[in-house]
């Protein structure tokens, strides 16, 4: 059990950091320095152990879904809700939830972790379950190569004690199963009709999706239309309406169901699962809807080519004004090459109203080569956002943005509308 004094000091740092504004990982850093075993000792108390969720795209929304589904089964769930998905973020989130004695009132921990940090994390705290979503070209500045990232996920899987849930449709993730000996392996997947929506990073080039023999999926998304989805769970189909938008969010719902099945085993309740799933809303910036001047405004986080392609495919541009904001800070990735792996021709019919961010001219240049018209370009996010709203008063608005651009835009939006506070 962690020392009460350290818990108290950590909580004090957390309080001070919040007064300062921001810095969700700072208190975690403090505890990590003073008591490196804090996380391990605190999580070791949990009766149902630890779940690790990793992969390139969709971690935050999937984690949110898993938490809801497990809570629907009556579990008390601890999670790193802030999206600060580094070890330090976990420590910070723990500090918030433990009592003064360092006790965590929870049955299970569900943690989303960035691939590289997850590898470090599982070396210290063995997860009982892991869910591995996908490997895509993202943040290559940090990891170098996509195969290296796949190896990180394989490492997480091999360190998992009980069950591993894998994406059947991502060849690099599916392959992880071959090296697993003792763990139960199950898959989430797509019906054949939907496969073409998710070219893997390899198929993206050839533009044809090869149908090869795939293992049986424990849960598969078989139909998807707007907010309506059909899942195949253990050979039976279930229809439901969802609050999630975008097919990649809905695909990850099948991942969340498969993981819930693995965790709950005999106590898995399909009806409760589907009912809970229907109420989950997207995580912040992942198709998050707000209202500005009586019109909807949607934020779509884009981090890598596949995510951007899926975003463009998921959201109909007709009838919406589009803004794109591209930054190149460390958290966004410094390399602009990725914009050239995305096709923007779906925006050609309506054009783009506003382009912004540090790399707005790179984005404008990219659109020029797909012959998409750009109405306004302004590097400064606050000015661009105001222009975008002024120019499109009576139209629903959609903003595609990189991570730090999203943070900046949310901050500006908070001045004019209600934006969920992320603590």
């Amino acid at each position, binding site marked *: 059990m962690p020392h009460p004094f350290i818990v108290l000091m950590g909580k004090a740092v957390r309080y001070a950091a919040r007064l300062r504004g921001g810095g969700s990982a700072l208190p975690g850093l403090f505890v990590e320095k003073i008591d490196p075993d804090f996380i391990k000792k605190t999580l070791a108390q949990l009766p149902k152990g630890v779940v690790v969720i990793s992969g390139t795209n969709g971690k935050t929304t999937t984690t949110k879904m898993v938490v809801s589904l497990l809570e629907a089964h009556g579990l008390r769930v601890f999670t790193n809700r802030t999206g600060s998905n580094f070890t330090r973020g976990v420590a910070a989130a723990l500090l918030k939830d433990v009592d003064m004695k360092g006790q965590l009132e929870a049955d299970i921990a569900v943690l989303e972790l960035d691939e590289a940090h997850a590898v470090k994390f599982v070396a210290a705290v063995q997860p009982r379950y892991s869910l591995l979503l996908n490997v895509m070209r993202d943040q290559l500045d940090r990891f*170098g190569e996509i195969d290296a990232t796949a190896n990180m996920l394989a490492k997480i899987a091999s360190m998992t004690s009980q069950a591993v849930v894998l994406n059947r449709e991502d060849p690099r993730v599916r392959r992880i199963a071959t090296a697993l000996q003792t763990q139960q392996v199950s898959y989430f997947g797509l019906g054949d009709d939907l496969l073409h929506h998710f070219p893997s990073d390899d198929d993206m080039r050839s533009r044809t999706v090869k149908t090869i023999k795939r293992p049986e999926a424990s849960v598969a998304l078989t139909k998807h239309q707007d907010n309506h989805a059909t899942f195949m769970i253990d050979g039976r189909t279930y229809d439901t309406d969802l609050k999630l938008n975008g097919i990649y969010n809905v695909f990850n719902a099948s991942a969340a169901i498969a993981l819930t099945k693995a965790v709950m085993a005999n106590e898995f309740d399909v009806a409760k699962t589907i009912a809970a799933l229907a109420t989950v809303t997207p995580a912040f910036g992942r198709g998050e809807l707000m209202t500005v001047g009586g019109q909807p405004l949607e934020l779509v986080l884009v981090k890598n080519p596949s995510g951007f392609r899926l975003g463009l495919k998921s959201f109909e541009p007709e009838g919406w004004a589009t803004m794109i904001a591209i930054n190149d800070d460390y958290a966004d990735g410094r390399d602009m090459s990725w914009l*050239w792996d995305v096709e923007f021709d779906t925006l050609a019919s309506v054009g783009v109203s506003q382009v912004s961010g540090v790399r707005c001219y*790179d984005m404008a240049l990219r659109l020029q080569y797909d012959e998409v018209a750009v109405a306004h370009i302004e590097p400064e996010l606050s000015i661009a956002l105001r222009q975008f709203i002024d120019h499109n008063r009576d139209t629903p608005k959609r903003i595609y943005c990189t991570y730090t651009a999203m943070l900046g835009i949310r901050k500006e939006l908070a001045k004019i509308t209600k934006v969920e506070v992320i603590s």
Partner: protein
Amino acid sequence: MSQPIHILQLYPNDMNIYGDQGNVLVLQRRLQWHGYEPVVIEYNVGDPFPSHVDIVIGGGGQDSGQEKIHADLLKIGPQLKQLAEDGTPMLLVCGLYQLFGNFFKTSQEKTLQGIGILDVETHGTNERLIGNIITRNDEFGDIIGYENHSGQTFLGEGVEPFATVVKGAGNNSRDLHEGARYKNVIGTYLHGSVLPKNPRIADAMIELAVTKRYSDYTPHVIDDLFTDLARSVAMDRPR
């Protein structure tokens, strides 16, 4: 009357990473904007080698991608060599730049034979040269891109450096060379993608290809305002 120009894209399935597709797109569009008809031929492992080629373009890949295409590349090496000797403009980025050289020796001491069009050799290291890069070349001025490689390349006698490093690493961590040039063949480590931000290179390749095929070249004026603005922002970004 439309005048086609045939672009051979080498191994788009396996050697195409970090936006190398952008280079093909820029050649296609600029050919159109200059009044020509681009025809892209995707060449993958086992495909028949096309009978007519005006421009050759190839990109980078994972180590696994390099291994997949290696035997096939050695097979078509003589045809590519003939095109190079005939003055065909070519742009090879990263992985294929390395394999257009004499050899690539991995950090595990395994040697991948190259096709030797460029007199360069590459040695795998555990150090990744990564970040924004600016180089300079007399013909093209400042060249702006992004590098991301752990192979370090050294030039032999029969080849010239493509450019000199102004900011960043380039071919290796020892000299200031970036890329290599032999006749109209350019090898470079620059992603970014390289052609969108450096359209003078694209236009030079187009001019060479069109002149060679049709003797006459009358380009149109292209509005490169966004290119200029994107270049000036990129110049000031951190490594």
